[in-house]
């Protein structure tokens, strides 16, 4: 209970620092707006995003604020529901990626030796293959429903976090108090969870926020190539569906892309600010 309160305090502290940062405020505002749009999608009394009752390729008007697509579906409704998909995929995939990355990075950094050797080589391998193509192949071969996409993105993006975490843990494990706790006879699990992870996790958190943007981008790219979940109107899918009609109906592709751009920009603003707050000594070198 006391620990929960302590975490809550730390969280509030970070938010306070974020609000003082220009980029932090901008990022928070943009992301809260997109999340609000995503959450309120079912209550906005928009036409069904799959309903094809309207005229086709109608330009934006008062009736259809963002126009209609090639099947006569309301673009506003599709873009609003798309926010839900993109945000969901982004956060779940980045969360999965963070859990794997933090866990493996901590293990490698704390235990060293063979464990470190194996994990470090795996990380190295990931940096040497174009992971986007790995995700692409997996999505093409093993089916492309939305849960599969989250899993694939999570499984292909963790090495960045793991590398950051490993470096931090390597420093943290040499701290004097860790030695002291060890001397008392604390178990490895206790040392890692109470004394190692809390002091070394900050850069990994900033990194995870950036990974959310990365995951949204990967999902959009996969959907743009027609490998996304055909049942949901994700922004990448909207761009993909609109591309054949750009010569006459630019809004079908351009508008979902603007939403995508703004969302990822907001996340990058936030990640940038978090990096400066949580990680003042290390420059924001991990751009992805």
């Amino acid at each position, binding site marked *: 209970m006391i620990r929960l309160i302590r975490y809550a305090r730390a969280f509030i502290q970070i938010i306070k620092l974020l609000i003082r940062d220009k980029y932090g405020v901008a990022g928070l505002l943009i992301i809260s707006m997109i999340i609000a749009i995503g959450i309120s999608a079912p209550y906005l009394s928009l036409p069904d995003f799959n309903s094809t009752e309207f005229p086709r390729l109608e330009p934006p008007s008062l009736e259809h604020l963002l126009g209609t697509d090639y099947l006569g579906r309301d673009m506003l409704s599709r873009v609003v529901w798309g926010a839900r998909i993109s945000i969901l995929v982004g956060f779940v995939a980045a969360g999965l990626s963070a859990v794997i990355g933090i866990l493996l990075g901590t293990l490698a950094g704390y235990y060293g030796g063979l464990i470190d050797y194996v994990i470090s*080589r795996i990380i*190295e*391998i990931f940096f*040497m*293959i*174009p992971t*986007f*193509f790995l995700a*692409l*192949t*997996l999505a*093409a*071969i*093993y089916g492309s429903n939305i849960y599969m996409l989250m899993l694939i993105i999570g499984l292909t993006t963790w090495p960045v976090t793991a590398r950051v975490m490993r470096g931090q843990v390597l420093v943290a494990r040499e701290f004097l108090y860790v030695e002291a706790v060890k001397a008392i006879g604390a178990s490895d699990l206790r040392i890692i969870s109470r004394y190692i992870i809390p002091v070394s996790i900050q850069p990994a958190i900033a990194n995870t926020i950036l990974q959310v*943007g990365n995951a949204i*981008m990967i999902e*959009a*790219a996969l959907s*743009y*190539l027609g490998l996304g979940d055909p049942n949901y109107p994700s922004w*990448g899918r909207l*761009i993909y569906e609109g*591309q054949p009609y*750009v*010569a006459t109906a*630019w809004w079908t*592709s*351009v508008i979902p*892309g603007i939403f*995508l*751009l703004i969302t*990822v*920009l907001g*996340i*990058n*603003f936030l990640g*940038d600010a978090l990096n400066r707050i949580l990680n003042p000594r290390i*420059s*924001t*070198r991990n*751009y992805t």
Partner: protein
Amino acid sequence: MSLARYLIQRIFQSILILLIIIIINFIIISLAPGDPIQFVAGDIAISSPEFADYLRAKWGLDKPLHERLLMYLYNIIRGDLGYSYRYSEPVINLILERLPITLLLTLTANILAFALGVLIGIYSAKNLGRKIDTLSHVIGLLLWSTPSFWLGIVLMIIFSVNLKILPATGMINVRNPPQGIWLYLDIIYHSILPITTLTLITLPLYFKITRDSMIQQVSEDYVMTYRAIGFSEDIIFRRYVFRNSIIPPITMFGIHMGFAVAGAALIENVFGWPGVGRLLLDSIRTRDYPVILGIYVFVASSVIIANLIIDVIYALLDPRIRITGRR
């Protein structure tokens, strides 16, 4: 550790990593659900099991997984990446045919992005905290957040659909193919939009890394020492800060060139550019497994070789690496 021993160790490591990458990809692709024969031969495979069996034997798909893997590895050593199911041509030929077409895009765009990114990054870091720095930082983040394929579409709408000054898709004018020197000019003309898109997308990477490393170098102790000695800012920058802070972007350039073959696939898809990226996307759609695998091996090898070259250059330049084996 001597330089030779360091090199041998690095080469051995690289080969091991390449081997693991090949094995993993081979297994992932081979365990894919669905029969590739079905994708290639379609209805014929169903109506004529004999034909399906013939194809299966021809491509070695009737053998167990480990035998196929060993066969594949043996062939790679001989420079053979297998045969494409769809084109009935050696995979390596398919890749090499398209490689220059992709490199025209990625090499040009990468060099442009490097030059512009480093220049703006240095300028930005020199004016740290001023308006121009904030502006380039925000534009950098904006470009970094832009989906490459969407930017391509937007540029296409502006310059091809509305202004009608640049071609939208393709590499040459198919209806009226020009001859001789005009053919090359036509290719360049068609490549303007894809190269611009790719440059704009890659630029923030170099900008950011240059700016960060400049900021870090300026705060190093040696800069203060030189200032105390009385060197002019100009000399400190030219002789020391610039030389040190140009290293990370050069490393980035090396790594990025390794990925360059694959990096343009989305852009190639937008602009119908017939390069390696397009080949990969088409092969994924048609389940042409040998081609997918071949491109992976090709890309992974080029990344590993690029990394190896970078490491060797570092080892030559920096005695600390030779001695401790670390950087």
